[in-house]
């Protein structure tokens, strides 16, 4: 029994998943605070369509043009989507309207590209399955390396921009007064791109569904008045790692288990004792 127990936790698949999911949780936690402060929840949620479009198109193009890595194509498409959103905002459209418009477009691309994948590739359906639910237990070394780089890039960028993002979110008008409108929109685009790029990277590890939970839930932490990034990161780490373990034991998809755990932890307490804005 003891040996079996040890075998389970030393299993390379399990260890891979633990590393991948930990990195994803840390990035997700930081991004979720970014999302919360900049009030871009709608963008974070709507990025599901964009991620599906970008990832599916990436794989589809890889079928025809071998040297185009699916991930790199996906990152480029995602950044293009964000530039489109920012462009619409700069033309005077409301932020949410701009996001919704790009989401329509990406929903169309997502369904066309997935359809193309299903038709042109024998493993098309399993690629789509992977995009949706991820494959944390089957990450290759390169995937893990890329995850480490991405975690460093996203965390580094957020760390450098943290104070500016807080000041921008606190009083956008005053920020614009001191920095001019061009610089202000540039910071907004950077925030969008950070959210978008993290979305793709999290999708690679845990799938699009769980990526959304990681990008939104951690900053919802209902027990902590002073919303501290480090505390909420520890909490989401514990939740994610329990979800990985339970998903192995119960043979359920990681995203589903994570979603239920996150719901229980983040949402139920606030339902019970109706917290205000905190």
């Amino acid at each position, binding site marked *: 029994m003891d040996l079996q127990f040890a075998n389970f936790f030393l299993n390379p698949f399990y260890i891979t998943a633990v590393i991948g999911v930990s990195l994803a949780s840390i990035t997700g936690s930081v991004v979720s605070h970014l999302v919360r*402060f900049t009030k871009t929840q709608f963008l974070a949620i709507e990025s599901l369509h964009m991620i599906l479009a970008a990832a599916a198109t990436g794989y589809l193009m890889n079928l025809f043009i071998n040297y185009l890595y699916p991930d790199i194509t996906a990152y480029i498409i995602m950044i293009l989507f964000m530039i489109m959103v920012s462009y619409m905002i700069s033309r005077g459209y409301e932020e949410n309207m701009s996001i919704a418009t790009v989401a329509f477009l990406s929903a169309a691309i997502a369904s066309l590209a997935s359809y193309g994948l299903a038709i042109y590739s024998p493993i098309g359906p399993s690629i789509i399955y992977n995009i949706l639910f991820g494959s944390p237990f089957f990450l290759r070394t390169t995937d893990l390396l890329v995850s480490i780089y991405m975690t460093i890039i996203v965390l580094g960028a957020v760390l450098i921009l943290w*104070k500016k993002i*807080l000041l921008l979110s606190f009083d956008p008008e005053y920020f614009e007064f001191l920095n001019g409108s061009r610089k202000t929109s540039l910071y907004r685009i950077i925030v969008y791109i950070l959210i978008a790029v993290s979305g793709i990277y999290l999708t690679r590890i845990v799938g699009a569904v769980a990526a959304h939970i990681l990008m939104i839930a951690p900053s919802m932490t209902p027990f902590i008045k002073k919303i501290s990034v480090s505390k909420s990161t520890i909490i989401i780490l514990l939740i994610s790692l329990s979800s990985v373990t339970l998903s192995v034991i119960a043979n359920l998809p990681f995203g589903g288990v994570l979603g239920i755990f996150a719901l229980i932890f983040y949402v139920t307490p606030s339902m019970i004792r109706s917290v205000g804005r905190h």
Partner: protein
Amino acid sequence: MKAVEVKDLNVFIGEAHVLKDVSFELDHPSVLVIVGPNGAGKTTLLKTILGFIKRSSGIIKVFNTDPEKDPGRIRNLVSYMPQIHNIDPFIPLKVREIVSTPVFFGESDPDLVDKALQITGLEEYADRYFYELSGGLRQRVLVARALAKKADLLIFDEPLSMVDIGSREHIIDLLMNIVRKESISMIVASHDVSHCIKYDPYILLLNKTVIGFGKAREVFTLENLAKIYGAATLNGKIFFMGEEHGSSVR
């Protein structure tokens, strides 16, 4: 030298004609209080002077500079406090960090921050989070932030509307002191002129268009007050008719 010159200014926001043929000039240094009901266009006028809102026609000069043409120079010369309602108080920033914003962006010196905290009576709150403060204290933080930036012209949009009456008078006294001592000009949009009056500022009565401009005794006539607050006068008495705000002058 004029601090601000505005000539035949018209501003549309969408379809709405928000400012109509607004003209006035402000010598430097001097103090101007803009008075008008909700929706009169006070905020719009301030933002147009700052160059945030594009004008449809007319001329604006701030220290001889067109704010739409050279926003960088305006940023150097002006300090600004926006109306408090566009702020997200739950962003975890401490009072000192907020007041230091102009220093953080290289527009000011650190010693101005301490001075600003002192003037607004915020020294003991410097290390508290903004969201822990009451409405009036929050507003003082924004006043302090504006004071922490070097400027020849201070623009305040309803700076003290949530501050209690006692502190209001105290802060205005301190502001006027600075303005006079350092020869700064100041424009304040406000519903309450009572504490400024003793300093004899210029008054701009605004309700989409200029109802009156000048010193208080010339401007605060019964006729003008009636016009601006949507009332009628009869034999020296004033009658309020409960019209929708800001809609009485067409």
